[in-house]
């Protein structure tokens, strides 16, 4: 049950990223651990830019009613780190 909830948050984040940034990929193609603002050695990652981070913050606020603070930019490392932050802030 807990796993379903976690998957749900991660999938919501992926769908939001694709929609907000108008990416030409499907949400399923984004891996939980793939870097959002970089590309790793295995070629995985979205390579977003810093302007996109604000777009993600707006999306998170719309979806979950919360957003990371400027001092917590590490939250945006990957989908999993965002989801973990959401879970810790909503206390589920």
């Amino acid at each position, binding site marked *: 049950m807990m796993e379903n909830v976690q998957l749900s948050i991660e999938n919501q984040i992926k769908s939001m990223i694709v929609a907000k940034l108008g990416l030409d990929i499907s949400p399923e193609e984004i891996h939980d651990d793939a870097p959002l603002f970089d590309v790793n050695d295995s070629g995985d990652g979205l390579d977003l830019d*810093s*302007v996109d*981070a*604000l*777009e993600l*913050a*707006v999306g998170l*606020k719309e979806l979950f009613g919360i*957003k*990371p603070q*400027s001092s917590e*930019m590490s939250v945006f490392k990957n989908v999993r780190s965002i989801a973990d932050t959401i879970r810790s802030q909503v206390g589920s």
Partner: protein
Amino acid sequence: MESIEIEKGLPHRHPFIMVDRILEVEYMKRSKGYKNVSINEQWAVGHFPDEPLYPGVLMIETMAQVGGFIFYKAGIPPASKFYLGAVKNIKFIHPVKPGDTFMVETELIESLHIYHQIKCTATVGDKLVATGVLTLVNPNQL
């Protein structure tokens, strides 16, 4: 806020001040101001010779300059310089012509780090002429 005071809040100078008057400012929330569009401006010569229309790119600039006043606090010089970081979902709904008062209202949607997203709505009289979302960047916040 009249032209002389506007120069205290904007780093722009002639010939690129695209706002004539600021009417309302709520710090870190919203702003409202306008530009009187005139035939006596350089763009009117070529855009277009037979039909002068206030260019869309300059509408965006007016939106950005009015939006910059969201971050203006009277008596706190110097004003920070903002750069345009992103332009999103801009719609030009009706043409704006010399003689029109191009009224812009902006509100802060969200801020993160040095980035600020603002929603902009422009009207001429009671007619909606342009809408959009801009991202303003303030590197001085680093």
